[in-house]
């Protein structure tokens, strides 16, 4: 296969950035998308040009490191597939592909296709956990969890934190990411004590990071490689309303009750 790539090149956060065209030959349909970029990078290095920077690690669709916008769609055209799991047989021979980084105020570009997603970590630090100090846990089977609830919690917990939802959203909202964690923990009996404070704290942090508001476009779910459902956003909204309707809701600092 032959391809024409138009790749976003940006040397750093302060550089304006631009598309650069590359013609790639010798692409096998069995290659993964990132292997195709590897081949291009090897060629660039061979010509002593700077290779294209992109994040990746597991190449199995689970670590959430990879991700770029391919022809306007986060992670490209294949449904429920991360960039690293995408294979070249998905594209026609001679295809022209435009590759861009996630674009969102809360995800500044580091270089080329690499962005800074540490905002997600800070949202988790704000409340995306169950406080269970090491050594304090009761016997695991002492709490029964209906299979239905456990399965639904697992559906939400499958989020890989890649950021495609943010990249897909016209408002660059992180609602699906936050809703997935709020729902995962809120569906389990262990997550009940902190349920109200969790949702309030996480939403407050999400806003502070500069993510946009959710106006129900649903683009996030369509782009999500793990098919996280926007039903979880409805669940977040319910939890949030309930929490703020309670007396004295407060965004607590993480771990506020500890020590």
């Amino acid at each position, binding site marked *: 296969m032959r391809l024409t790539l138009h790749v976003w090149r940006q040397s*750093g956060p302060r550089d304006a950035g631009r598309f650069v065209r590359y013609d790639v030959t010798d692409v096998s349909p*069995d*290659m*993964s998308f*990132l*292997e195709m970029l*590897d*081949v291009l990078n*090897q060629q660039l*290095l*061979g010509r002593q040009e*700077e*290779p294209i*920077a992109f994040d990746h*690690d*597991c*190449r*199995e*669709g*689970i*670590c*959430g*490191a990879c991700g770029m916008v391919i022809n306007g769609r986060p992670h490209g055209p294949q449904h429920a*597939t991360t960039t690293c*799991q995408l*294979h070249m047989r998905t594209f026609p021979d001679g295809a022209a592909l435009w590759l861009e980084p996630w674009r969102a105020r809360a995800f500044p570009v*580091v270089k080329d296709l690499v962005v800074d*997603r540490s905002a997600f*970590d800070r949202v*988790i*630090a704000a409340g*995306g*956990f*169950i406080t*269970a100090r*090491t*050594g304090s*846990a*009761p016997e*695991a*089977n002492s*709490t*029964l969890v*209906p*299979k239905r609830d*456990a399965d639904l*919690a*697992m559906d939400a*917990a*499958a989020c*890989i*934190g890649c950021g495609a939802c943010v990249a897909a959203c016209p408002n660059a909202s992180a609602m699906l990411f936050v809703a997935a964690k709020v729902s995962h*923990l809120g569906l*389990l009996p*262990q997550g009940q004590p902190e349920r109200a404070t969790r949702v309030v704290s996480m939403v407050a942090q999400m806003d502070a990071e500069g993510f946009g508001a959710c106006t129900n476009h649903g683009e996030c779910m369509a782009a999500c490689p793990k098919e996280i459902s926007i039903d979880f956003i409805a669940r977040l909204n319910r939890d949030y309303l309930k929490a703020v309707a309670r007396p004295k809701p407060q965004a607590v*600092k*993480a*771990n*506020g009750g*500890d020590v």
Partner: protein
Amino acid sequence: MELRSKAPAGPLADKWERYRSDIRLVSPTNKLKHHIIVVGSGLAGASAAASLAELGYTVSCFCFQDSPRRAHSIAAQGGINAAKNYQNDGDSVFRLFYDTIKGGDFRSREVNVYRLAETSLRIIDQCTAQGVPFAREYGGLLANRSFGGVQVARTFYARGQTGQQLLLGAYQALERQVGAGKVRMYPRTEMLDLVVVDGRARGIVVRDLVSGAVGSSAGDAVVLATGGYSNVYYLSTNAKGCNVTAIWRAHRRGAAFANPCFTQIHPTCIPQTGHHQSKLTLMSESLRNDGRIWVPKRKGDARPPREIQESERDYFLERLYPSYGNLVPRDVASRRVKEVCDEGRGVGPGGYGVYLDFADAIARLGRHVIAERYGNLFEMYERITAENPFDVPMRIYPAPHYTMGGLWVDYNLMTTIDGLYAIGEANFSDHGANRLGASALMQGLADGYFILPYTIGDYLAQVKLGQVGTDHTAFRQVEREVSERVERLLAARGRTTPDAFHRELGRLMWDKCGMSRNAQGLKETLQKIAALGERFARDVYVGGKGEEFNQTLEHAGRVADFFELAELMCRDALHREESCGSHFREEFQTPEGEAKRDDARFGYVAAWEYAGAGKAPVLNKEPLEFEVVHPAQRSYV
């Protein structure tokens, strides 16, 4: 070098409990004053950093990914073992201990393994309390499945994403401490060296992967939780970034490296499709619960699998091992797969594959049950191969997966450098010459949640540590050395990329120090590695600068360390004139083709000591003493 295991006295089952009660404690006010450096945020590192911070220590945690949640542990699929005996099928702490020792072909330390089995019970409790959504039965109780090398169902799982869920649990605990200001997290920061002051580990030198700046962190103890080194083979099931640099650099500073040649080749991976291949994808061992492995009886039989009649198939694992069948341990399964392929009975391109067939299970249990158990694995397989395992059997072939070898540690998980600890896959403990499935997650979390947080206190309570900051001359010196190494890589400006060198090294290692080994091949490979390493130093092309985001430079540094490690692996494999577990020396096998151990000569841990550049490393031996089990020829027939 003296290797003192510090194994406590007393009956095996009481050792850890007694030891824990005798251990010295650090007072709460003093804990705050101690700064502990944790390198790595996988299951081992994240659980340790979170637990240490909860105890009151001041913690810094480092990882090279952009977020601690992306550590390689996230990719573990199948499950985690624990001797809960929820299935009432006769499991017990002793049985898990025994299975692990036997699975490791009697090359691990009894006391450590017993402690691991004991601790397994608490791990499941801890993770459940954190909200890890383990699979459940309809009544709401936790569900289990079976893994290789055992006859009980003791594996807990969260669909095919167990590692992800366990890591997110540990990551969330870690982030809770970050939010509370007790852990400072340094993502995209790579440890490039260890700083030792007056014989004690006092800090690390790191490179900020975004700015490229070289800097340091000083502390009272350093914990390496940096994972395994299967990527020495280039193609492996590990994430692309997995590397040996942190533990290799510590080795060069005095930490003994134990059993480097014990590397696990996992039997069920998707076969390679072309020379562009950048990694191999694991198909979880749990698939062997329901999938049956076979090849055609006739050599070169190229008919589609469904046209090959039952009577023309060889279910070779079931034939050779009637009591364990498809669930024999990994080393045994991998070797047998290689054997049938070498005989010319392999299937798929190049004959490097065997079938893993679900037709019987689908007929017996229904498609929906199989979909629920393995749905995401089937999808992953189909994405990569464009074949649907519901209709055609999977094709699988062995691939490098896990490294049992690693830094030598004592019962406290301390290396041969005072104040330097190694936990998780980075150390050598517990799995001997072969790891059983679902035991790495268990070990990583046992080390991080329940062992290290106690044992590190015993050290800190005893030693008198002087004030050492990053302005100490030792830090300046190591920073200089690190910068010079970076400069050298950039200055070579040759013609070959680090990736090309890495591939070549990987091929050498796979061919001669992989699934089977022999003296002649190892000797030749030692020479070839040396030659290739020299060429690397001269001819590598990195490009760009040190003071910027430079992924080629990151890779080059890792490849440089893989060269040195590869040499040690071959030396270790050459010196061990026996076969045990994953280490299969062709010269030493039973008439049935099984590994033939030599306990009299090799019943020890080989702990290699760095002797300086260009000098042969020194072999130290920790004899393995068995108080309770009696090493026997492993049998899974």
